[in-house]
């Protein structure tokens, strides 16, 4: 007993030291560096118009990508878990594609499709539609990269729940929409929120794919992660870390919300049996 507790204490110390060194110290360093020239300098670098524009763009992209993936993620998970159809396993594999491909490759694929020399380049130019080096391209790349988060979260959950609840609702005379709204959605709500949270964190933080399609036009097509890189390359460390600290803050909020959700989720899981 004693021996065991000494062992587990040792393991705990190692675990925490590891976490501290590789996760906590860098995080603290980000905030430390951001505030190294004082609070005034920090506030000033955030109030820079280009930074503001990057923040607005990041929020805009997330505000489009997350709801889109919410709808399509739920639809895909619903279709995969509640119906049998040919090509189902292909769909499941496709959903994982954004996770398995390097984001840079995804970005390049969009350039190949929609860039000036790309497959649809001429047609897009003729119709005055800008995708690459424009906001639309950033949104497309982000939607692509973050598609799996919600669907992946829901598929195992909905597969486990089966179809009986929906069948019960239908047998009681509910229509498809009532069944979805009153039965399916409440059954998946915590998992869905969790997926939305992860999807949002990635939508705001995505660098690789967005970097390829954005063109880095200051004040126009720079998202926060891209702007951090630009500032850093210009040796504006306070500015770079100030913006980075905002992203880190987002990560922290996401983690807290996620923990709260997991706690709620777990509570639900326990009482449902």
């Amino acid at each position, binding site marked *: 007993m004693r021996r065991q507790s000494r062992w587990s204490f040792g393991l705990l110390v190692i675990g925490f030291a590891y976490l501290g060194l590789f996760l906590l110290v860098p995080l603290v360093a980000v905030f430390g560096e951001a505030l190294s020239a004082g609070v005034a300098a920090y506030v000033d670098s955030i109030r820079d118009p280009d930074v503001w524009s990057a923040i607005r763009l990041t929020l805009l992209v997330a505000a489009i990508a997350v709801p889109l993936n919410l709808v399509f993620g739920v639809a895909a998970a619903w279709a995969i878990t509640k119906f049998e159809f040919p090509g189902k396993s292909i769909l499941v594999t496709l959903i994982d594609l954004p996770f398995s491909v390097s984001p840079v490759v995804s970005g390049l694929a969009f350039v190949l499709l929609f860039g000036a020399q790309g497959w649809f380049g001429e047609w897009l130019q003729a119709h005055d539609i800008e995708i690459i080096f424009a906001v639309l391209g950033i949104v497309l790349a982000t939607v692509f990269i973050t598609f799996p988060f919600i669907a992946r979260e829901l598929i195992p959950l909905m597969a486990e729940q089966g179809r009986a609840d929906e*069948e019960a*609702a239908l*047998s009681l005379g509910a229509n498809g929409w009532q069944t979805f709204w009153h039965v399916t959605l409440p*059954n998946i709500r915590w998992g869905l929120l969790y997926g939305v949270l992860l999807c949002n964190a990635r939508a705001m933080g995505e660098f690789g794919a967005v970097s390829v399609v954005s063109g880095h036009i200051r004040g126009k097509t720079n998202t926060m992660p891209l702007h951090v890189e630009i500032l850093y390359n210009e040796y504006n460390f306070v500015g770079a870390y100030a913006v980075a600290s905002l992203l880190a803050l987002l990560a922290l909020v996401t983690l807290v919300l996620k923990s709260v959700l997991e706690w709620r989720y777990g509570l639900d899981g326990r*009482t449902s049996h």
Partner: protein
Amino acid sequence: MSISLRRVTKTYGDYPAILDISLEAEPREFLALLGPSGSGKTTLLRIMAGLEFAERGMVCFDGADITALSVAERGVGFVFQHYALFKHMSVADNIAFGLSVRRRGTRPSRAAIAAKVAELLDLVQLSGLGKRYPAQLSGGQRQRVALARALAVEPRLLLLDEPFGALDAKVRKELRRWLRELHGRMGLTSIFVTHDQDEALELADRVVVMSSGRIEQIAPPREIYETPANAFVFDFVGESNRLPVRIENGEVRFRDIRIPVSPPVGMMGTALLYFRPHDVNIVPADEGISAVVSGIRPRNGHRRVEFRVEGIERILEIDIEREMQVETGQVIAIRPERASIFPAAPPA
């Protein structure tokens, strides 16, 4: 309400789930679909409900063809094996669900729904538990909530899929009796699926025995038990023993022992004798089949004795009175007094 299935067939890929089944249930009848897993009984029930659709054949309610109607349009009550209660809703909201999703014109008022819920809670003996959530109820209580929820829409046909399958033996027996009573009181037509022969024989007016997507026999419980249509039914609805026999000159013989059973008309040569453990007598040595006692177990009111007969692989299980002295290894002459005879090779 009467329900009739006419020549219904359903396959899953190459696997035939239901093969050309026709079946009728009279108004107010309590029908059991009995069979082993994979016999198609649940699929048949789901076809009646409109949760599955047959490839061929017709489903009629009161003579009207409703084959193409969806489950929502059929207005049947369906009780699921694992209850399928909506766990985020209170018991009362669960029961009210079928009424509160109705269109504005046909939806009862709030007060009317509340009154109906109270009435149903009373009916299923759960008054006062309306505010609880399904997770706070026992298995038997959940099953009764599921039943109340199905009854709320006032169906004329109640379909139950293994209604007691997930409950422990004692609760199961209580609920069984209660359901039988309820069925009688409500004047419904009810059909339930089970793999438990006791349940089917105790509850149903008529039992439909199924195997491999076909109906083996439809009859009242007593007839199913006493005059099974074939070896499958005999084997499935109760404990059974089997011995190879010969039929000669209208007499049934096992080796040179005559079994006092009259053979089916026209059957000759080798056949199989099926008999229940309690339909056997101990007889003087030269009048019965000599068998060696290989095991003794106590049972309610009697003892279950296992016998080996030389040259026969399958052990015979026979009930004898508690007063009789038997020991393992003892040789005793036994003779089936009531038995059924079926062809030796079951028709393919």
